[in-house]
């Protein structure tokens, strides 16, 4: 949903954030559709709720298989809010101490949770 001029009630940083959020969703939904269609036209079979390990996901992305295209969409979707945090941290650096420190803490927590659970 691109912003229409009469709806502009937000600041430039809010506009940038909303573009990133919506852009990330659109790209991943497009990849999901491409991946599922590739599955449909290929003769590959899959188990419905087959789960993939991180290694399998990375390998499938590297091979650009239908599963890989879908997995890439999932990773882009997961990356979208992370990019949003990074943008906030960069934008507010030196302008607002709270909004510079808080995103760094949030990001550290996310990375720590991911790394420690591997």
């Amino acid at each position, binding site marked *: 949903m691109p912003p229409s001029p009469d709806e502009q009630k*937000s600041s430039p940083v809010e506009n940038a954030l909303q573009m990133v959020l919506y852009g990330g969703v659109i790209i991943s939904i497009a990849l999901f559709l491409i991946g599922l269609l590739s599955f449909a036209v290929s003769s590959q079979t899959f188990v419905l709720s087959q789960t993939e390990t991180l290694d399998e996901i990375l390998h499938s992305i590297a091979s650009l298989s239908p599963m890989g295209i879908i997995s890439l969409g999932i990773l882009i979707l997961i990356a979208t809010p992370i990019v949003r945090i990074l943008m906030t941290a960069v934008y507010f650096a030196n302008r607002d101490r709270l909004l510079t420190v808080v995103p760094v803490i949030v990001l550290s927590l996310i990375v720590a949770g991911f790394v420690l659970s591997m």
Partner: protein
Amino acid sequence: MVVVETLLILLVASVFIGIIGSMLGIGGGIFLVPIMTLGLGIDIKVAAATSLVAIIVTSSTSASKFLRQGFVNVRLGMFLEMFTVSGAIIGAVLVTYLTPQSIEVVFGFVLIYTAFYMWLRKEVEHGLSEGDPSAASPASRFDGSFHDDHAGKTCRYAVKNIPRGGAASFVAGNLSGLIGVGGGIVKVPAMNLWMGVPIKAATATSNFMIGVTAVASALVYLSNGLIAPVVTSVAAIGIFAGAILGSRIMVKMAGGTLRAVFALVLVVIAVLMFVRAGGLM
């Protein structure tokens, strides 16, 4: 063939969840997880992982809209994210130690809480008008304002009870990581009733936070090998399409009757969850 049929059922269900979610202002995990577990027989841990990824779609889409309208309190949202993310990671790690049955029991209780919340929903309209002398001197660095089109004025509000809001956010994040819901059902009332945030800003700010909260736990599920790409992509597409349709329909959650019906549906789902947890289904 069975696989294709199941995926079609999931797609149609997700579209409906997307529509209902945009009507009720929720992410939809509260419906998606039971449909996957009770309806399609998918393990609740995989269903929660799927829901968490799908929730990123709904929250990012609606947060994007709310940001454009200026309803999100970015400063407050980012601050409370520290608490939701901490809770989410602990919740997602706990999942690996819990049996599916115990997670189903937790889900059942959350459903009953949600049913009561929807049925008895209490909202407080905060906000200081432009001429109000106290509006000129914000007391907290988290105070916010937005333009209310319906009232035709700028609504300013003071944010209070930050520690209590932080605690509620931690609980919301914890539930999110544990059972795959967004946690808006905890955060929105906490921000509205305790912290003095008007309902529009509370809903928008909660949505803004859900994406980051869901990512924190989704990454733990990812590293534990609980993500099922195909099911996840179908649910995400369905919910996305449903959310777009829902916002086009623009049906506002009107009257107590519709809310009471949803509350009843949630109680029925809760009972089914308990039955399943007890091994009777």
